[in-house]
């Protein structure tokens, strides 16, 4: 069962990527392609290193071996200046939003413009208000991050991520801990921004239904390997018991409900042995 993305001009192509942390193997020689202009979902259980994968793509972590090429350049061979130049074209939405807590919503969105451009204030204002309008928070420009709900913070972070008009956005668990309404808003926004702005999106998530509803292509990662890939329909129809358990959220299956332990009865009686 090896599907290939239909679009052969991948924006991000990962080859033979291995990464380990504290002696634990997170990725074991994985290959992965993110097609241009599409929404690609990377799903897997918690702790499989999905966020780590985004940090590897963004060049914040170095792989043990293998390569990550973004738009044709090997991210981990770039010097700091070139890496920063590349990052200006990559937006990333962190799980927490990662807004700067001492700046207002407006100043947070203006931050990349102020750091990287010398635009006049009037132009910065227009750009910031346009991006805030796109995420529906133009009216919240004067609020401080502490006054925002989790969903609003993520939308502000999204406005900030697109303010430099990047070629791609990486979403780290965008739906975690959201109520159904803000979840729906975020799903819609990710979809609309991707198609409206001609972006390439990578969504890392374990919210199966929301992610599958907007993804063009899905990778399933578990135990350091790509265990399944395809369009959401193909993945949903997979006959692999693990994929079925994950996609349908079954409590027991190839992944056991119990953490590995010794026999229950002998464990209970074990106290007497001590």
């Amino acid at each position, binding site marked *: 069962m090896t599907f290939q993305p239909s679009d052969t001009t991948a924006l991000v192509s990962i080859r033979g990527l291995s990464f380990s942390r504290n002696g634990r193997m997170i990725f074991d020689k994985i290959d992965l392609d993110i097609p241009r202009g599409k929404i690609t979902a990377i799903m897997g259980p918690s702790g499989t290193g999905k966020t780590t994968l985004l*940090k590897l793509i963004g060049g914040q972590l170095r792989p043990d071996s293998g390569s990550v090429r973004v738009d044709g350049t090997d991210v981990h061979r770039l010097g700091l200046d070139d890496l920063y130049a590349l990052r*200006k074209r990559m937006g*990333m939405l962190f799980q927490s939003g*990662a807004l700067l807590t001492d700046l207002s919503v407006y100043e947070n969105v203006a931050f990349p413009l102020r*750091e990287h451009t010398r635009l006049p204030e009037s132009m910065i204002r227009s750009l910031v208000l346009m991006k805030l309008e796109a995420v529906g928070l133009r009216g919240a420009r004067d609020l401080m991050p502490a006054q925002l709900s989790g969903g609003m913070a993520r939308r502000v972070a999204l406005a900030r991520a697109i303010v430099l008009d990047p070629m791609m956005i990486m979403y780290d668990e965008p739906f975690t801990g959201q109520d159904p309404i803000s979840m729906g808003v975020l799903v819609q926004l990710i979809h609309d921004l991707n198609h409206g702005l001609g972006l390439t999106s990578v969504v890392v998530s374990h919210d199966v239904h929301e992610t599958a509803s907007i993804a063009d292509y899905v990778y399933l990662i578990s135990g350091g390997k790509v265990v399944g890939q395809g369009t959401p329909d193909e993945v949903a129809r997979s006959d692999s018991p693990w994929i079925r358990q994950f996609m349908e959220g079954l409590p027991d299956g190839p992944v056991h409900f119990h953490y590995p332990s010794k026999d229950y009865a002998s464990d209970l009686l074990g106290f007497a042995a001590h």
Partner: protein
Amino acid sequence: MNSVLKPFQILGESALVSLRKLGRANLFMLHVATGFPGILARPRLLAAQMYSVGVLSVLLILISGLFVGMVLGLQGYYVLTDFGAEESLGVMVAASLVRELGPVVTALLFAGRAGSALTAEIGLMKATEQLSGMEMMAVDPVKRIIAPRFFAGLVSMPLLAAVFSLVGVLGGYFVGVGLLGVDEGAFRSQMQAKIDFDEDIVNGVIKSLVFGAIVTWIAVFEGYDSVPTSEGVSRATTRSVVYAAFAVLGWDFVLTALMFGKD
């Protein structure tokens, strides 16, 4: 055999951990130093940090300086009066403050007030992915966040130490001349005659610059190097104050020996 070697193994391991951390701290400082030109280009960033690091510490320094000076006035008077030398109270108070207590006590208070705040702030920024987010926006957090804070600390410390010494002398004057009846002229003239600009004041300023660098360096590095969890940030904040206190007292001995040692 193993149990014999175990303590050495543990000792060696912790030595390696400490050395590695020292190495990281030095590389980090080099990185911070590269942010210096950026600060000259954006003085507003520095001004904002000087306000939160320096200006907000002024009240603490004023009150502490006043009381330390008043205590010096009292204690000095009791000792000097035994020798009939209470006219020298001004010299004693001023020399103690300018040479030692000004830089040292200010540095210790600064570590508690501003250093701990810096560590906690930076550690929390790390824990909430703000530093990471900045990196992904192609903004170097060391230059944008750390460097202004470090240089603000470096500039603020000597100024705060000067304020401390000034207020301390006034406190000593108030107790000595105002309450205990030391001759006002003697207090002033002896102080002016015996306190040397190069020997005392310049050395005091050098001390406070060194302490400012040490305290702020430890504070920003501990924050930046902290484990990004609530427990990690809390430990880093404690370490920041404790290490800063040790470092200040240790370096004070070294600097005093170098500056005032008669060869």
